[in-house]
């Protein structure tokens, strides 16, 4: 992981313009535009089915928008596969945990380093010399993530056996291991108890502060969102209804109507 840098919010890292996405008759997104600046924590909120996850899926190439443009690091992107987004420095976690259940915590997080490991196949057959050296180097990086997330005790445990809250943490670890420039978190605190939420909040803030990672996150817990994010986008029925700093958004009558009024607060 990178060394600590003072927290600064820089130029635009990601720009979404007029993005639309449809599934048959369902319009998941219609003409959504917003931007994410380097170094900030950007929240995407909205009622269930508003299109938040679909938005993240478009950003990391899992869905292809039917219309509109996504510019990342100053370059307009064409249709791309998720692994290409990963190569460009975008990592993410999922709303429903997407860990490799048959593998240990350590191996799961090691997979996050996949793109940084490039010793060839023949070296892999030997698992010796450069291949072993590379394996150890990346193991050290992974151990730093493990220390950071305080999950040393479950290093060798198959993730399928871990409780839900820890699985979410391991999934964050796998994303962090990739040292992303842009980290997408889909409801990182859903289903957690208060203590687990507090831990997760702390990790998110620390990642952002210590490593300067830009974070775009979806979260239903309004208290958390308003607390940790720099700016908030609000979606409803696939459309953007508000965008701004937490205080503005909180006071926006459209948001109160659409979202806070529906009992999510």
């Amino acid at each position, binding site marked *: 992981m990178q060394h600590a840098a003072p927290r600064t919010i820089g130029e635009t890292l990601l720009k979404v313009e007029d993005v639309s996405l449809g599934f048959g008759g369902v319009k998941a997104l219609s003409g959504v535009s917003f931007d994410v600046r380097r170094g900030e924590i950007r929240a995407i909120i909205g009622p269930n089915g508003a299109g938040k996850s679909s938005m993240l899926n478009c950003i990391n190439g899992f869905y292809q928008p039917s219309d509109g443009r996504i510019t990342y690091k100053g370059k307009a992107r064409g249709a791309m596969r998720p692994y290409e987004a*990963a190569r460009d420095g975008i990592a993410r976690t999922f709303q429903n945990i997407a860990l*490799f259940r048959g593998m240990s915590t350590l191996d799961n997080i090691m997979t996050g380093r*996949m793109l940084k490991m490039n010793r060839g196949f023949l070296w892999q057959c030997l698992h010796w010399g450069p291949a072993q050296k590379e394996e150890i180097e990346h193991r050290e990086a992974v151990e730093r993530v493990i220390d950071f997330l305080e999950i040393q005790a479950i290093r060798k445990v198959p993730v399928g056996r871990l409780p839900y809250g820890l699985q979410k943490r391991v999934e964050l670890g796998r994303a962090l291991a990739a040292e992303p420039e842009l980290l997408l978190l889909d409801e990182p605190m859903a289903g957690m108890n208060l203590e687990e939420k507090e831990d997760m909040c702390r990790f998110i803030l620390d990642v952002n502060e210590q490593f300067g990672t830009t974070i775009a996150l979806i979260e239903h817990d309004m208290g958390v969102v308003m607390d940790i994010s720099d700016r908030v986008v609000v979606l409803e029925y696939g459309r953007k209804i508000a965008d701004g700093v937490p205080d503005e958004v909180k006071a926006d009558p459209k948001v109160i109507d659409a979202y806070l009024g529906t009992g999510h607060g």
Partner: protein
Amino acid sequence: MIYREAGQYKTSYAADQAIFPILQDRIGLAILLLVAFVGAPLVASDYILSTILIPFLVFSVAALGLNILTGYCGQLSLGTGGFMACGAYAAYKFATAFPELNIVFVFLLSGGVTAMVGVVFGVPSLRIKGFYLAVATLAAQFFLIWLFTKVPWFVNYSPSGVISAPPRSVFGFYVTGIEATSHAKYIFCLSFVALLALVAKNLVRGRVGRAWMAIRDMDIAAEIIGIRPLHTKLLAFAVSSFYCGVAGALWAFIYTSSVEALAFDINRSFQILFMIIIGGLGSILGSFLGAAFIVLLPILLNAGPTAMGAPLSTSTIAHLELMTFGALIVFFLIVEPHGLARLWQIGKEKLRLWPFPH
């Protein structure tokens, strides 16, 4: 307290990532290798070597191959027999076309050819999964066997279609053909198997293995962290088919000394699949345990009742064998998908705590 890792602190990640991090395991492996390379050839009869140990070794290679594809990468295949046939015929073609070529290279080359064939048949795996992929590999199975029976070029235009393996030697010892002793064949086979097992273990504990397992466990998440699905699956098909091809070549040249397509029909594919299910999906050790189990089961079913004075007829044994497989496969699929290898591991964990169970 015979088997425990307490007190064996790993002072470096290198030690922690070693192939056998626990001292007792290393000693165990050393003893096993000593028994296999020195003990067995000294005490085992020709009969045991050629009807139990050599087929066990050959099956182990095939099981390793299928386990890489199905157990590690999650791509179900019923084409194992076809790929073994591919290796056997490729070895025959190479051995007869280049009589000077060392048999070791002949086997490696036939593995290479089979790997390429495997890649071709692996392409559909990008689009289809599970049951449908199994059906596609079944097509490979039938197509390959059909090809080898129908095209006389593969058997150098021999009228019967059955051909015997030409004699070849390594370090002055015949390892194939009629002059080869079972001892020479066994040692040759064993060396091959030991090396292939080491390579397989190295692959699965590193980057390549993690990519395979990621695809197996959740291909969507794998792609999102930068793993290219097609690339990774095709590599699994290639490596797996390489192993199956070498297994087929060993089968034809060392075990049966004849190349015939019938030996590699669909039943062979199922047999290898049973081995990895019983032995343990996604386990190198499991591939060996499964192969041993399936080689030994008919022998035990035969010897047991005979020793008790009630010998069974061959057909009864065949039925019993199938029933036992059926029961065990259901048991392992439902209760313990990681097979005998997992039972072995649980046993070791118990031993580690013994005599204090908590």
